[in-house]
């Protein structure tokens, strides 16, 4: 069964009812056996679990320490292009936004990579808007070899591709694909994605399966927290993760937990996720899946990030730019979203060391393809 059929077989109403009728007793039971149980994940994401937040945080911190040690994996996003043929009301790259559009040439990309390498990064996340014709498989295949020659671990966050295209990129050394569903509610999804290929909820939803089938090392899931009820969206992401783990046991999984933030011409969150809520989410996922990688971007503030990496977060970016060419020549008119933690990698690492954590720059062999 595909995840699409699986999702269609779930009743959003029933799950929502369960989420909001959980009791303290349900949460206590969930805390006894949280690992791998979707029932427990539901209870831990429910409003009832808010009273157990400290207990969840203690367990989450201990489990994260045991599995990942004091290590925090360092990665950096590198924007290839802000061209986009979609209209998404939360994103600064939306096609109707009158911003300067740019796609890096190979020379420009090399110049960007030199700046990023000088910051010590060895794990990179290539990002682009979604423009199938100008920034599609041909462009990606033309730049990937240069990127792979410089970075041991190469991830991509671009439009959903076909299975054969993923296979082609895997052969060129692609290690990970981040593909965020944004929301698992088809109605909400349709409201926010009003033009372009990104309107295809179902094609996007089936992307992780296409990635897993070609044997790419890691798959990143994510929802844009705030578009819809974040508790239900997070729970459904948990279902997605469990489905993928049971069907594709060779793949590694990560989740990103971006909160909706203001951007050029954008919208405000429908359902606000507070800091408390974010902590609950991180801890719930750690208790549910001890091995899951959880990454946190510079969308979040410095104070919050410093407090979150001990709690369950395992991957961090620092010193990020969210525009093509932004490392060599910053230009605020091109940003996808605003950055909140503007510290340099050195400053972030210093804060990490003070708390007894250790930044890890390299954790992969580039020759493993």
């Amino acid at each position: 069964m595909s995840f699409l059929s699986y999702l269609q077989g779930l009743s959003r109403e029933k799950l929502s009812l369960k989420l909001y009728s959980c009791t303290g007793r349900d949460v206590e039971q969930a805390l006894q056996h949280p690992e791998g149980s979707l029932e427990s994940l539901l209870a831990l994401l429910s409003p009832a679990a808010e009273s157990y937040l400290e207990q969840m945080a203690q367990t989450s911190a201990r489990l994260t320490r045991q599995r990942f040690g004091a290590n925090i994996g360092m990665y950096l996003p590198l924007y290839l292009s802000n061209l986009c043929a979609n209209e998404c009301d939360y994103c600064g790259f939306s096609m109707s936004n009158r911003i300067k559009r740019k796609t890096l040439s190979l020379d420009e990309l090399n110049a960007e990579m030199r700046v990023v390498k000088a910051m010590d990064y060895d794990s990179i996340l290539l990002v682009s808007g979604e423009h199938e014709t100008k920034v599609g498989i041909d462009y990606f295949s033309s730049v990937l070899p240069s990127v792979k020659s410089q970075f041991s671990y190469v991830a991509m966050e671009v439009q959903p591709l076909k299975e054969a295209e993923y296979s082609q990129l895997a052969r060129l050394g692609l290690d990970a694909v981040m593909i965020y569903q944004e929301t698992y509610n088809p109605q909400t999804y349709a409201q926010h994605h009003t033009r372009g290929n990104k309107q295809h909820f179902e094609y996007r939803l089936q992307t992780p399966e296409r990635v897993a089938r070609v044997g790419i090392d890691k798959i990143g899931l994510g929802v844009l927290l705030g578009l819809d009820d974040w508790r239900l969206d997070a729970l459904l992401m948990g279902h997605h993760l469990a489905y993928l783990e049971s069907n594709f046991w060779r793949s590694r999984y990560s989740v990103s937990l971006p909160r909706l933030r203001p951007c050029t011409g954008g919208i405000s969150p429908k359902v606000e996720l507070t800091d408390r809520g974010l902590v609950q989410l991180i801890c719930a996922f750690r208790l549910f899946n001890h091995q899951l990688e959880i990454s946190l971007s510079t969308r979040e503030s410095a104070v919050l990030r410093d407090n979150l990496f001990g709690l369950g977060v395992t991957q961090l970016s620092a010193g990020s730019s969210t525009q093509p060419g932004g490392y060599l020549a910053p230009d605020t008119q091109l940003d996808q979203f605003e950055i909140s933690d503007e510290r340099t990698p050195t400053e972030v690492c210093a804060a990490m060391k003070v708390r007894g954590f250790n930044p890890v720059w390299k954790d992969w062999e580039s020759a493993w393809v």
Partner: protein
Amino acid sequence: MLKIAEHEFHSRLFTGTGKFSSSNIMLAAIRGSESELVTMAMKRLDLKTGSDDILSPLLQSGIKLLPNTAGARNAKEAIFVAELAREVLNTNWIKLEIHPDPKYLMPDPIETLEAARELCEKGYVVLPYIHADPVLCRRLEEVGCAAVMPLGSPIGSNQGLATEPFLKIIIEQANVPVIVDAGIGAPSQALRAMELGADAVLVNTAIASSADPIAMGQCFAQAVQIGRAAYLAGLGQVSQQAINTSPLTGFLNE
């Protein structure tokens, strides 16, 4: 004294280098443990820029390094790493770890045997990390492995010797040193492995993730020594029943 491939070890505690909060703490914990062999993931070393904080402190310390193939998902990747390790670290020792399952990091017996055969033929001292499978241990011994490293429980889990009945069979049968690797979460569990007759144990998470890695390293050192001494002294037989002083069948002897 423990001997692996003509190399002698005073300490029967091997340790790791991952999960520490800094290289200073890592070194101090290794010293505290008195370990003479430490394993290190090749994937963590940045040979291009030297920006990792593992290799140079370890090289300076003079402790014997056991590079490992962690992260490799098949025989081909593991062999690549072994060759890289020989080239850059000038050692033919390799801890062979192949886990295609990124969740529980379970070792793949088929790929491990294949890689072990090829690496042994190429002259490596191969120490394979495997499930506590007595037949696989025999097969690995046949292809020339210098030791076997069966797991006590899932790696990093601190669950101790969940595989004890199988470890006993492996220890009974092995003609090469048996190093219990993975899952040892407390000094008492290391002690138990040594009492059973294991030749050595490898401990990382329990030391590195402890609130005081240096003190914990020392505790493991003592536990391993006591366990070994107890094994040599000979443990008493465990009896399921009390030996009755007024036997019911005594009349047969009258």
